[in-house]
């Protein structure tokens, strides 16, 4: 059985329900709970605990290690630069959603220090969505595309 601090909510509720208790309050460093059986009065409450920083939303999704086909993966930026979907302002895009791309196919360029860095895929895939905004800065690890392995 887990220590109190690391129990999941379902287990705590189950224990309370199985018991003959009318009310229960539990506070530990990670959370705080109050239970009261139905019909015991009108009060039902739960209280969060402050502290615990929520993780940042922009956490880059790491590329999946799986080699299975059909798996959805995220392609992230390997450098800091400006993201372009087209080789030139008036040229057509390298890829569009739904395109099938071969291994080594160019999918975008990232401009840094006046250099155009073409990004190639490591594996054959289908473009599922474009995540970065064209002509805007991308940072290291920023998700650019989601793709499906073929």
């Amino acid at each position, binding site marked *: 059985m887990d220590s109190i601090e690391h129990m999941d909510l379902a287990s705590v509720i189950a224990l309370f329900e199985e018991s003959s208790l009318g009310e229960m309050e539990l506070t530990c460093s990670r959370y705080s709970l109050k239970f009261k059986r139905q019909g015991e009065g009108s009060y039902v409450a739960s209280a969060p605990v402050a*502290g615990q920083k929520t993780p*940042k939303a922009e956490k880059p999704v790491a590329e999946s290690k799986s080699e299975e086909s059909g798996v959805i993966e995220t392609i992230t930026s390997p*450098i*800091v630069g400006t993201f372009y979907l087209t080789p030139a302002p008036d040229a057509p895009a390298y890829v569009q959603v739904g395109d099938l791309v071969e291994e080594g196919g160019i999918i975008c360029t990232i401009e840094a*220090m006046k250099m155009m860095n073409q990004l190639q895929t490591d594996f054959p895939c289908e473009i599922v969505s474009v995540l970065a905004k064209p002509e805007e*800065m991308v*940072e*290291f690890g920023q998700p650019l595309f989601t793709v499906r392995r073929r």
Partner: protein
Amino acid sequence: MIRSVLIANRGEIAVRIIRACRDLKIRSVLVYSTADKDSLGVSLADQAICIGPPATAQSYLNKKNIIAAACLARCDAIHPGVGFLSENADFARDVEHAGLIFIGPKSETIALLGNKVAARATALECNLPITPGSSEEIRDLDDAISTAERIGYPIILKAACGGGGRGMRIVYEKKDLANALQIAKKEALAFFGDASVHMERYLENPRHLEIQLLADGQGTVVHLGERDCSVQKNHQKLLEESPSPILTEEMRTRMCQDSVKLFEKLGYRGAGTVEYLVEGNQYYFMEVNARLQVEHPVSELVSGLDLVKAQIEIASGKKLTITQDDVRLKGYALECRINGKSAGTITDLNFPLGPHVRIDSHLLPNSVLSPYYDPLIAKIIVHTPNRDQGLATMLRALSEVRIEGIETNLEEQKLLISSVEFGSGRFGTDLYVKLWEKQEKKSRGK
């Protein structure tokens, strides 16, 4: 005019520079590695840009990504902090070529001072005392043997382009010279890409003193007195104080004047430090640190000046508005570095507050002391009328520190500061080892 600064560093120095930017109403942009994404600096900066994975070669030393980030975030200038790229002449040049301001000396100055042989030669031109030794590269074993005879053993071989204790070899007797020379050259090549080494007299237990300077690169150089950084462990400074308890007024004056002379000769721009070794009443030029230093708050407290603000103002082209006469050094300052001895999550963290105490840190309760980078947790700096009170106040401050979850050097620092030796002011760079041996003996005795 600088309106936006990119900070190419991490940890407490990044936070220090962000605070200075905020005080100057300048926008701060911090670059960070994925390991630092939850750091205080990232949360305090006006903008933060991820530049690479934890490994420094791909993040904090990744010149291309850093300069690209600065351009794309429309920064006017880059502050390199301390360490990492702060004394990298190529980086300074690349920054300048990208049309940005490098907050530091001119790249040529950094390049010149990065070569120990060239730096020693410049110091000699200014008539600074240098340790007996070769001002030029050691050509071969014969040259080494005759130079060693001339200056006397023990000698030290140093990589001409080295630093930080790497590529050094101490030789006590002639018979060990050939082997040592071979290894020193190999290490110099491996670490610094240049096999040149030079030879100096090795001082066995000197004091490390340094003079802090500010120069606007437009003719004005002022010094802010010395810092005594003699308490070290494996060449890493632990305690820094100003004024030094061993310096006579006459020696101080000469060292400060020599340092100013050298900076004038160099046409130096920005904040910088001249390091000296001191033995008895002799001092010897060692090197110039062409950047901000970790222990800069010591000089800030005694001078009342803000070195980071000054760096930014000088970089933006402003002349120094103060002269040497305006610099009034007041009281005594002592810095104590609290380092982690293990990495991990700091479950509880409490710093001392109150009068006479300044804390520079980048950590909060629940922060992670990263295993990838240097283990500095906080710098505790006190400012008091004199050394005696400074030691009492530092001990008071240390007694209030609470750090849980990782091991630290807090107890070692308390031991050092409360020791009779440190209290007396008379000790050498071997103080840490000596006290530790004493402590070990005591423990064994029990």
